């Protein structure tokens, strides 16, 4: 039983580290989504994100297609990491419950 508890504790520590890693990586990445608005035959890119109750549309400047692609990629990565962070938190909660029981 002691060995099993040790393994569970180790996994708990790993998950705690993973929470920190996801949070750190998420903080480096832009949030929201990219939206294109067509004004007079030209596309203008905006980053839409929530600030409290409001949705903010931030003009991202005159980006080249590859820069826009890069921005979208970073936003997608942030969303992927946010999903994984939620999963890690669920696993961590379960692990804590298993150690306690």
């Amino acid at each position, binding site marked *: 039983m002691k060995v099993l508890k040790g393994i569970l504790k180790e996994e708990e520590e790993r998950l705690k580290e*993973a929470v920190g*890693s996801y949070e750190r990586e998420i903080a480096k990445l832009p949030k929201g989504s990219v939206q294109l608005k067509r004004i007079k035959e030209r596309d203008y890119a905006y980053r839409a994100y929530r600030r409290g109750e409001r949705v903010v549309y931030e003009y991202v400047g005159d980006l080249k297609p590859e820069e826009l692609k890069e921005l979208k990629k970073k936003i997608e990565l942030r969303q992927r990491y946010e999903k*994984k962070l939620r*999963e890690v938190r669920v696993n961590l909660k379960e692990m804590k419950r298993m150690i306690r029981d």
Partner: protein
Amino acid sequence: MTKSVQFEIIFEILKRFQAAGVLDKLVLVGSWCLYFYRYGSALLGGLPTPRTTDIDFLVPRPFRFEKVTDVPAILEELGFAPTFHGMSGLAVYDHPELRLEFLVPEIGRGSSEPVAIRGLQVKAQGIRYLNFLSSCDNNYIS
């Protein structure tokens, strides 16, 4: 955490490494080996196949990479986040279900610093005597 989820992730990692042309430069070591020996019918009988959440890839020396592969980017796509240990740049890659790590055989005097593998764009931890595993060819196994 469920085993089937872990398997799916590991198969996906292997497939991506294969597609990137790096899988044949790596050796899967640790508890996950037993699963793959059984999967490939190399291990028969009633032996248990316990696995941990750690999946370790050994990178045999000398490194022979014809091209540079951005392995962290591959892992990023699969949702792995780097967990850095200290200031040395050594990173393991965490996922809700798994932790992936790269290892190299430690040679000479050894070092407390991790070993940079340019061909994979990762830093690996040096561990003494791992060369026994990487220098062992198929004749020894069969």
